[in-house]
């Protein structure tokens, strides 16, 4: 069970490695893409500004030095789909990333790109992104047609659901799960909206809109209206948690946001291969703090600390018992 950390520049490499990252992932958006499609069409699931590297030379230096530290580097090519006009550019990019830059895996969503890359037999392995919405064992079996070495499960699956999938396919493919930072109010693979900076995420944008309930029955009493309104308020609070507690930090500057630390003992038991920390675009400090927190819990779990003690430690690391108690900051409900 490895700790997978986001990285956006070579400057972050040494500190992430020292903090305990065991795998790295990043994005690249070449200038040709930006010239052709502007910032409106994203090559991967993060804005081209801030979340991705923009030169092959920078990426090559990052990959070479990461390899010297025994850290594999994966790269996102995980837009939901690519059109016929975009595909040659993406295939060429994938070839270059694999054969010239030397990245260890390409993280892919689009089934057509997955097909084409599996046929291309590149040196880099293929990982299926969480955006592919692999929610069941049959979907994993479908994806195995394209020879991925790893599948990233969506964060909407429960521990039991992850366990059932892992149990069925553990020997055939690695399973990666979400561990820390950003959530998604929707099923990421079936959300057709943009996070473009002009409008922001749809889920948070909704929280600021005027709303009107319509009752389907005969009498829409004041009591019913209040009941629905209270639930909407709770939902908006949940969305606030999903979005990193309004992108907040603790007094010590530690990141808030969705968290799966308490589930790490379960994931070790289930045979999960990798724990993903989200946030390529986050500040170096947030990345560092995130890796330290996850690695602390992983170390204790590896050392055989009892689950209840691990959970206690995880909650103390978050330094926000009131948020842990709210129940909205957890990726997974732990028994």
């Amino acid at each position, binding site marked *: 069970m490895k700790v997978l950390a986001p990285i956006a520049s070579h400057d972050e490499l040494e500190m992430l490695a020292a903090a305990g990252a065991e795998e790295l992932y990043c994005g690249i958006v070449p200038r040709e893409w930006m010239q052709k499609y502007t910032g409106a069409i994203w090559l991967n699931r993060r804005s081209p500004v801030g979340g991705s590297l923009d030169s092959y030379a920078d990426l090559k230096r990052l990959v070479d030095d990461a390899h010297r530290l025994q850290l594999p580097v994966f790269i996102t090519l995980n837009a939901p*789909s690519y*059109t016929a006009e975009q595909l040659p550019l993406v295939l060429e990019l994938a070839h270059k990333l694999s054969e010239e830059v030397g990245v260890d895996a390409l993280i892919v969503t689009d089934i057509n790109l997955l097909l084409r890359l599996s046929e291309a037999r590149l040196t880099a392995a293929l990982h299926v992104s969480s955006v592919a919405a692999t929610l069941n064992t049959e*979907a994993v079996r479908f994806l195995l047609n394209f020879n991925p070495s790893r599948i990233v499960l969506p964060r909407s699956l429960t521990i039991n659901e992850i366990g*059932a999938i892992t149990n069925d396919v553990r020997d055939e493919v690695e399973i990666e799960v979400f561990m820390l930072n950003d959530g998604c109010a929707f099923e990421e693979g*079936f959300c057709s909206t943009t996070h473009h900076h002009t409008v922001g995420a749809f889920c948070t944008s909704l929280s600021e809109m005027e709303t009107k309930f319509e009752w389907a029955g005969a009498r829409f009493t004041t009591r019913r209206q209040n009941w629905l309104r209270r*639930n909407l308020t709770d939902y908006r609070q949940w969305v606030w948690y999903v979005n990193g507690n309004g992108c907040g930090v603790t007094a010590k500057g530690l990141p808030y946001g969705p968290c799966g630390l308490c589930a790490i003992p379960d994931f070790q038991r289930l045979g999960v291969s990798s724990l993903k920390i989200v946030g390529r675009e986050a500040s170096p400090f947030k990345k560092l703090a995130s890796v330290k927190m996850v690695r602390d819990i992983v170390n204790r779990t590896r050392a055989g600390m009892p689950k209840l003690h691990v959970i206690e430690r995880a909650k103390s690391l978050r330094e926000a018992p009131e948020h842990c108690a709210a129940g909205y900051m957890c990726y997974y409900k732990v028994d």
Partner: protein
Amino acid sequence: MNPTWCLHIGRAEDLRGEFSLSRIATFEKSATIQPYLHLTTQLIAEQFGEIEFTRCYFGNEFCEHLIPSLKALQAALDAAQAQNLSFTFLTPYVTNEGLQALRPLFALLASHNAEVVFNDWGVLNLLRREFPTLIPVQGRLLNKSLRDPRVTTMYATAPAPTAAITALQRSNLDCESYTRLLTRFGVQMVEMDNLPQGNDVSFAAHGLQLSAYFPFGFISTSRVCMAAGLHHHPSEKFQPGAPCRHECQSHLLAYAYTNSPFGNRDQKFYLKGNSYFYAHTEAMLRTLFMQAQSGPIARLVFQPRLPMKEA
């Protein structure tokens, strides 16, 4: 050229009675939604005159808690047969539990020469392995075009680079390698939404048939359902896939884009259960009907309710 007309029914009773557009327009009881249906039926009559539905759709694309019972499916099949309608069964994205719920339904459908719309690769895999007589149709959730009416209406008129606009009107369906893959998996038809930014449907020339839903498009969907939270204590609310009492059937939530940074503050979004939808404007409907009349769209699926009806 006339498209094949399909009607998405909520239950078998919808097929008992005359098929007039005026009756179908009354299926949806919501006063908020009804004007869209009146507009739609009016435009159908204007553009096509009398139409004949030859196929019915039944099932749900968005929530595994709304997968119908075996009894409801049998009733819908019987009603369709009585009206001499072909049958298409809609399926949502699913967990292993949802797949288990679908198995007996597929077993029943297998003897009816039915189509199954899959919105999950796992469902396609199950169909191919265990129910090869069922005809798979790729659902609209697997068609990954951007559908965000906050910006897509702007993109449709903005002076953006042609490459960007074209990309927004297409998806991977315009790649021959992808359509060949679908054909290899027995898929002959793919479904799509009528996009606010317009659809480039030139890929239909690759041999796949194209089906479009109207007058609602989906925006986003989630395993976390706001409505399902109604009966839970606050700390237990909004858990993925949590059990529910189909609270989604009791109400509708309409949003107005009052915080838009652009001029489209009258844009509406509708939340029904776990999914958000947009309604087609008159211009969007006219464009869709024109594409159907001129050929690229072979099938039109009329959904006379927001497509979240419990069977």
